[in-house]
């Protein structure tokens, strides 16, 4: 397993230049996420429009390259999606990232750019870095104001 498969170009780029790294005014949903094992902290805010689609979303906090890039790409991926579509994407992403190392086939269809994180499952100690943003998003839209952790 090559490092390049974990740190794909797209990930390195989003780490350096995170998109939607901002606060969202008058957000409808928000949550904070912690990875207590590495001290990462993430705060996520989003707002749905009247038609029930994500109008805006932003994140803030400190984290490693994987977790920053994952947050950044996640915000891009969910913008414009309905709640149901977001949850389906969460599910898809989660299954890809946590598939066993020796899994023969991992479903990627529908992930688009998020496929860049397919290498993470070969680095078991880093899976949580990739999924923190998604768990936080999940909490934000299913539990309202809440605090999640990845341990």
């Amino acid at each position, binding site marked *: 397993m090559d490092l390049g498969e974990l740190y794909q170009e797209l990930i390195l780029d989003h780490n350096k230049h995170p998109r939607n790294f901002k606060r969202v005014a008058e957000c409808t949903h928000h949550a904070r996420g912690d990875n207590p*094992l590495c001290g990462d902290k993430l705060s996520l805010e989003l707002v749905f429009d009247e038609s029930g689609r994500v109008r805006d979303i932003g994140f803030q906090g400190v984290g490693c390259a994987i977790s920053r890039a994952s947050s950044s790409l996640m915000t891009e991926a969910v913008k414009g999606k309905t709640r149901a579509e977001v949850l389906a994407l969460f599910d898809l992403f989660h299954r890809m990232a946590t598939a066993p190392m020796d899994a023969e086939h991992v479903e990627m269809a529908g992930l688009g750019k998020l496929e860049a994180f397919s290498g993470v499952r070969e680095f078991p100690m880093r899976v949580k870095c990739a999924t923190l943003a998604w768990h936080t998003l999940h909490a934000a839209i299913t539990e309202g104001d809440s605090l999640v*952790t990845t*341990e």
Partner: protein
Amino acid sequence: MTAEQSYEDAGDGLAHPFVKPFDVQKVRNDFPALHQTVHGKPLVYLDSAATSLKPSVVIDAVASVYGRDCANIHRGVHLLSARATERFEAVRTQVAEHIGASSRSEIVFTSGATSGLNLLASTLTQAHVRSGDRVLVSMMEHHSNIVPWQLACERVGAMVVPIPLDKAGALSLEAYANLLDTKPKIVAFTHVSNATGIVNPVQKIAAMARDAGALSVIDGTQAVPHLEVNVAEIGVDFYVFSSHKAYGPNGVGVVYGHKALLDALPPYQGGGDMIRNVSFSGTTFADPPTRFEAGTPNISGVIGMGVALAYLRNLGSDARVHEKSVLNYAKTRLRELPQVSLVGDSEHQVGSVSFVIEGVHPHDVGTLLDKAGVAVRVGHHCTQPLMEHFGVPATVRASFGVYSTCDDVDRLCDAVNATVAFFR
């Protein structure tokens, strides 16, 4: 070490064609400690209830952690740490399956049954017991399932009330039913008595507790080595055991707790790993099971316990049938010896038999048996209230493992006869 598979190879036609006969000689070859002499005589180890011997696979697993996957777990990103973490956490899943828990997050690793029972006594009392409340504890308990409740209840001003036993040493269900009318908050009892081997009707005791609105805690330390345990079938809220009595390393134990109940408990010890966020202005805690696992656990011990439970599972029910036949043989033979009386004789009994010899104190019996190469335990077995119930200061206890044989029992009985003769 290659096993002489004499029993299997003998082809004496006695074994049922579809049942693999239990090859105790092969099993014995797995336990290096068996193959030594004591005072010039081959060791007869009849002290498995104190601690079981360990098969080579367990000893090797522990050594492989120290010799290869030597790292601290959970917090490391490097390969050794990843390997150690994976082996450690795999045991959690395995233990959950082994005892029929519904989720791996219901399994808490401790440093032994005693610390598991202290964890529960302390946190359950803190969460659910108030001044004037009652906790029922059976009179046949090991001190480890009495004293923690006394210490915890004293702190909140609650009472520990003993559940009486009948003459034969079995729990009195009638008395228990009456005590449940006093609305105790918790009922704590053993699955199998370590002093007598008596098996409690745990399913019934747990159901009665539940019906009375009490939480139930079972000390399964002497059950896990000898019985198929399923916490869901038993219907118990918490179940505790030690690794070292079930062929695993020492310094390790397990607490099973029903998920919703564990979630509601405060932390027990504070330290690394069990936290979410630490600050002098306020600390927050992780979810179970992590909340209850402060500090570096006994990593090699947990991994070794996983190997031990797999070894036991692999022997299957044949081993249990074999153990039971050795126990029954021991009871039959001991009953025949003049001056010997069994203590706590019961149909429902596994693993151990306790007895006294008229006119000879158990301590002297222990020394004479030792000289004959026979290792038994003598004393009160950390069950002083039970000894008082039987009106004896101590007993001699012979206890069995998967490696025990009827030859062992014969050696025991010969030594008992010699002891009686010596003190005549």
